[in-house]
């Protein structure tokens, strides 16, 4: 199996607000406006933050469920909330997905069709069987179309699930094995 990732894990997090340089990051304003004193944001707060930052641009803002998935994807201390460094990583990843989506959605209709979605997923390096690909498209399309919100939800889950799979396929033999509790833990957390 040939895995493609999305860059190295982020550097160890510093203390929010502890470094002058960090405070000059243009994203920090959005983050602190929502996060307040604890320096962590929940799914509801993330949704508000992304909406306020007008991240989706002309697209429909993210729904709460997608925001929960985003936190789950990057939350490594299992607190189910997000610090600034995780927020920065998310922003970068989201921007990549947004650029990708816009390059497919040439007419700015806000949706892509299943064939384009298929190509998009393949071009991100996922090697899935036609059956798995088909099921994903059925799961994330409405009336045969995929919105930006659904596209991001799909990408978040694919990234999380692929990460889980890779960690359990240490020998890269293409098979992952789970005990019961581990299986439930992995499948229920995203």
């Amino acid at each position, binding site marked *: 199996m040939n895995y493609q990732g999305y860059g190295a894990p982020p550097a160890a997090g510093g203390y929010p607000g502890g470094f002058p340089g960090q405070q000059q990051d243009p994203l920090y304003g959005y983050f602190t406006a929502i996060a307040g004193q604890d320096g962590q944001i929940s799914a*509801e707060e993330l949704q508000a933050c992304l909406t306020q930052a007008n991240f989706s641009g002309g697209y429909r803002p993210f729904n709460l469920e997608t925001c929960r998935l985003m936190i789950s994807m990057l939350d490594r201390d299992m607190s189910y909330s997000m610090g600034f460094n995780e927020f920065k990583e998310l922003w970068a990843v989201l921007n990549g997905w947004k650029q990708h989506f816009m390059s497919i959605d040439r007419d700015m209709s806000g949706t892509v069709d299943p064939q384009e979605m298929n190509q998009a997923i393949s071009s991100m390096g996922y090697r899935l069987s036609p059956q798995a690909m088909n099921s994903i498209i059925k799961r994330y399309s409405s009336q045969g179309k995929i919105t930006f919100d659904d596209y991001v939800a799909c990408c978040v889950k694919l990234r999380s699930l692929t990460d889980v*799979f890779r960690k359990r396929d240490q020998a890269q033999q293409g*098979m992952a*094995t*789970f005990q019961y509790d581990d299986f439930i833990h992995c499948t*229920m957390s995203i």
Partner: protein
Amino acid sequence: MPPPVVPHGMCLKVMNDRNMKGGMGSDTNPLKFMDQDYNFLQDYCLKTRQRFVDEFFPPDLRSIGEGLLKPEVMARVEWIRPTKLYPEAAEFVVDTVSRFDYAQGFIGNCWFLASVGALTFQSKLLQKVVPDGQSLRHNYTGLFHFRFWRFGKWFDVVIDDKLPTINRQLIFVKSKTYNEFWPALLEKAYAKVCGSYADMHTGRVSEALLDFTGGVHMHYDLKTAPTDLWEIMYRASQSEVLMGCESPAGNEERLPNGIVLGHAYTVTKVYQVMSGRNPVQLVRLFNPWGDSEWNGDWSDNSPLWNTVDDEDRKQLLVSDNGEFWMSMKDFLRTFDNMDICCNCPDFLEGKSACKWTSKSHNGSWVPGSTAGGCMNHPDTFCTNPQFWLRINEMDKTCDQGQNNVLVSLIQKPDKRNRRLAQHHGIGFCVFAVPPEMRSEGKFRSSFFNRKPVVTSGNFQDARQVMKFFRLEPGEYLIVPSTYLPNKNADFILSILCKNDIQIQKDTERTEKDFLVDLIGVSESGCTEKEDEESKTKFLFRQYSDQYKVVDAEKLQQILHENLLRGRKNAEGFGLDSCRSMIAMSDFCVTGRLQGSEFVRLWDRITTYRDIFYNMDSSKDGVLSLNELQNALEKTGLHLNEDILNLMVVRYGGASEQISLEGFICLVMRLNCMASIFQKLCENGKISLDESEWIGLTMYS
């Protein structure tokens, strides 16, 4: 009460794919018999320009076997290739394969040849047994291969094409077309798996029918045949099926009516004619001798054919080629038994809308350990292998009150040579397991003081016994055994069921078996449930589109207008959650729900809603951590503390409390994942490749 688990569409696909890919021993990936690799040998012989000679089934007396031919006859046997018998003229197949291509030789293997006759009608089945691309001309190396299903696995069997002859005449099966050799070569391959030609002497037609299909096998004693046997045969004939029958015991003497006793015949067609104004059900049979036909009603010369119209008269046979018609009435009167082997179990009953679940397990009777003998030996019966079986509720549209379970028990031979295989008397018992007696591991002898709910009947010293019967949803124990204790043998236990089932061998059961419980519905509950179902069906019709399906948007609308209506502060079900519920409820991975799927889903939603409100002890409209734990246990689910905490964070968000919407999504997903694990797990673990993992988890 929580409804039974609904199978997950993607999980069903993964299971089917695994069975089809199968790994070793499937029909598309057969094992190599005696580890001989046809492709390797073919390449080797082509490169070295050699003609293949099979050292494992050598062209000498050993392959003919003892007791078949007299010594003076045996001394005259020559092994000759078809290309030497008929230079430039020998062919593997002349025109197409047909049941009229051959006639039986010196071996009493009519049971095998009757099955070959059945096979010639079914090109798909035939291609599994006789792989394409074989020739006595192109790329000829004297090497051929055939495939047979033997005791649970498909095998690819390699042979050379040296055939036994005397005075340059084949002494076993002969082609009626002098230069056609596929029947003789197929017979040689089967002789090899039986051990020798002599080992093919005397057998039951069912044996070869099963070896050619690996399919569902049903045996019928014609004296006690079901009243709708003709309809069963007719339905079977619409599928990929092999049917054979046997005349009463005898030494192949011919009766005045033309039927040969102690002989096997092929059933080649099932047809109904109008004789005047009377419908008459007919069956067409074939004698693998290639002659000796029935001469009674509806036979080749019967005047009854003058009573039918021109269209029906086209069915009339005029050649003395071993094939003839007879009425179903005469068939039941004249023959002793028949067998049907079919890849599709739908022939078992008229309605084809239902899907059958098939499970197989291997086991062993080991003296001193698991060879407990039958129930006549109460001290040791409990040591037999035990198979725990759970039968889940069936979709009501499929349940007509008929038989729903077919259990088959096959004992494997301990010797290569078929004649030397010792068949023990075998059978099985089925016991109902009351809920309070659920346990891990084996049941002890005290459990077996009760009477079985079903048995296979008299113990038979046969290769296979089977029984078709009805079991209500619940838990059962199947105990296969030999008649006498301390008999050594391996076996295959197969269960075919219209309901969804789980089955586990006694050594494999773990606590996870009880994670997803089925709780029986009381009688009064049934009545209430039917009323509720009518309301749900009305709801479905009200919201479904012109294609009679409900999609995620419609489901969201239904939930908001019928489940959350009037509730304050309801966040509402997100569209993604509705898509998820559909993905977990639709069998065919279409992204939409049909009527029966919707009814099941709604039943579960309303059940979980009721549990939610019962558990919300503070009546504030949300569940706390403790309340969530209690509610999950009510649904039959148990989670360890870490996962439970994770669920509150994952589904509760900042408030760390679970709303009704969150609870329903959480429980449905948890049930779905637990069910997937249970269905695909082996030895307490689940192994998935990346596409399986992504497909299962993304489509949910």
